[in-house]
């Protein structure tokens, strides 16, 4: 037999027969495996080369923001930016994190790690941490100190440190090389190109995160924070979750064309403390206001959790939740695009699931 006919699948009774062996070896799961709910196999983790810097010529400090004790994508970009500056001077990256951070800092690119204990309850963290960071930068003679340019975390801390070091920081840095830092200015209309100063505040996408190697993350002596008494942190204040703008909400409950029981929907959103969102169809019908629309011509949202009831998942709507991690979808149609997008897809009638879930949440919150 010629080699060409061996490769072509043999036709029997007009049906093209797929070679099951080729599917198994290429790792594409069969439809039955997906439908039964078994988790898909994840690829084996690659072994990364180890990088050790014994005698650093310089130290570049990076202070990540952290969200709930984990490194965010911006924090990884920040450490990548510190890496760029350190590699140019054959130096090491020193990362300052709270001692509760359990992330793998070596994989993120840290050569040295300094931890600090969470301060006593009632301490304003920024006011306590800034003088300690200044003292740390002086002790290790850090050539650069990098922060993330956010409003209440890294941006606040970085500006305090810059004021105490009497430095003119590079703010809103969007690109960084060893010789130049490009910063946005004039409300985003202009750019400033300057040599990297001692303090930099970095935006997302400023540098690539470190992926190709595993660094040492050697522990250095812990940092002790003072307890400035002039500002006392009284703790979080209860907020009306439904009044939070959709772009900032943590949890969004969203209604589509498959929802007609609005009382249950509103009750569920109130019980979960979630913001209410809607697809275009619902806003066109007038069931929810237009400023609740999520999608390409509505809001592009980035909540931590998204519950979609009765939404089929038009491409424009999926664009609105492209950056959302955890999506739960309830729909009668198992083949809807939203069900393929969701992490937890439940084939059920949204009308019946919403009141059941609202009752369950009420019982759980009452502690019954």
């Amino acid at each position, binding site marked *: 037999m010629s080699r060409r006919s061996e490769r072509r699948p043999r036709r029997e009774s007009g049906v093209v027969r797929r070679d099951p062996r080729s599917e198994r070896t*290429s790792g594409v799961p069969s439809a039955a495996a997906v439908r039964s*709910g078994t988790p*898909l196999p994840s690829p084996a983790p*690659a072994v990364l080369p180890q990088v050790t810097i014994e005698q650093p010529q310089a130290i570049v400090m990076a202070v990540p923001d952290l969200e*709930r004790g984990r490194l965010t994508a911006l924090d990884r970009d920040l450490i990548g930016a510190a890496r760029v500056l350190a590699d140019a001077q054959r130096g090491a990256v020193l990362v300052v994190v709270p001692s509760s951070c359990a992330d793998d800092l070596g994989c993120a690119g840290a050569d040295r790690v300094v931890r600090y204990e969470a301060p006593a*309850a*009632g301490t304003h*963290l920024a006011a306590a941490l800034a003088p300690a960071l200044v003292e740390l930068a002086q002790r290790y003679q850090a050539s650069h100190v990098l922060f993330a340019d956010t*409003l*209440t*975390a890294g*941006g*606040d801390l970085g*500006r*305090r440190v*810059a004021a105490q070091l009497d430095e*003119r*920081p590079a*703010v809103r840095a969007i690109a960084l090389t060893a010789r130049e830092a490009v910063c946005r*200015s*004039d409300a985003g*209309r202009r*750019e*400033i*190109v*300057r040599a990297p100063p001692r303090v930099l505040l970095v935006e997302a*996408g400023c540098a690539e995160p470190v992926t*190709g190697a595993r660094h040492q993350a050697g522990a250095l002596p812990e940092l002790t924070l003072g307890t400035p008494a*002039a*500002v*006392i942190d*009284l*703790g*979080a*204040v*209860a*907020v009306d*979750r439904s009044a939070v703008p959709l772009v900032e*909400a943590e*949890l969004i409950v969203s209604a589509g064309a498959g929802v007609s029981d609005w009382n249950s929907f509103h009750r569920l959103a109130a019980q*979960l403390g979630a913001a209410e969102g809607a697809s275009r169809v619902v806003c066109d019908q007038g069931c929810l206001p237009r400023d609740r629309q999520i999608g390409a011509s509505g809001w592009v949202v980035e909540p*931590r*959790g998204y519950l979609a009831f009765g939404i089929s998942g038009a491409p424009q709507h999926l664009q609105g939740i492209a950056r959302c*991690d*955890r999506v*739960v979808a*309830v729909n009668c149609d198992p083949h809807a695009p939203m069900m393929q997008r*969701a*992490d*937890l*897809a*439940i*084939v*059920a009638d949204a009308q019946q*699931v919403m009141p*059941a879930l609202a009752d*369950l949440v009420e019982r759980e*919150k*009452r*502690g019954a």
Partner: protein
Amino acid sequence: MLDVAVLLSVGRHPASGRAVRAELDARALELALGLGEGARIHAIHAGDPGELALRDYLGMGLAELTVLAARDGDVADALAAHLARLRPAVVLAGSRAERGEASGMLPYRLAHRLGSQLIANAVSLTPLGAGARVIQALPRGGRRALQAALPLMLTVDRAAPAARMSAYGAARLGRIRAIAVESIEGVAGTVPAVPADWRERPARVRPRRLRTMVQGSASERLRSIQPVHASGARLLDLDPPQAARAIWQYLLDEGLAEAGPPSDPESGSVRRGV
């Protein structure tokens, strides 16, 4: 009677580019005006006394606005000297300007030089005895209460209540008082705002970076950019009570909801540190 100073700058209209009031500084002034009769407001601008956009601030209900007449330069010295002489209990400022470098460093430098406490991203201010209670806005719509001693510097951003409209009559009646910079003691002159070794150019649109793998075989890299289920994606066929139970368990596992009655937010303990 609380002395409140508000630092005002000239903003740029986002569409027309005209000089108007700066949005964040207007919100700071709104915060000060919201204190009512218990506060005496000192509105301060450093720059050109003839600037027409300053009338927008007067139109919000200000009787007088002080301008430290300075040419283009580093105004921190002039402002620090003026505030050191005035000694207000609270200074309010927008978190960043709309023109120039707009680094947002001015409130921090002033607070450092004057020895004030600084709280960023404030949304409300309540005088309380010898100090003040400030509500700070956190990411994702959260709020945090802080008790601060005076003197205090607050920066204000978009989470604060929107500024009231500017009225033409009040804008015309308000007074602008100019103070020459040289007459404030301790100020040597003006420092150039932009150092010589910086280059400025119009902003370029930056392409969004695609997060792709750079290592691995071609098939692994191809699979990494295809939209696939996250590991653990499940499709279930359930009746409503089971579906409710499954969703609730998912929310608990992912930390999006908490069982049990909500803890008392006024208890004063720090919940969920930033």
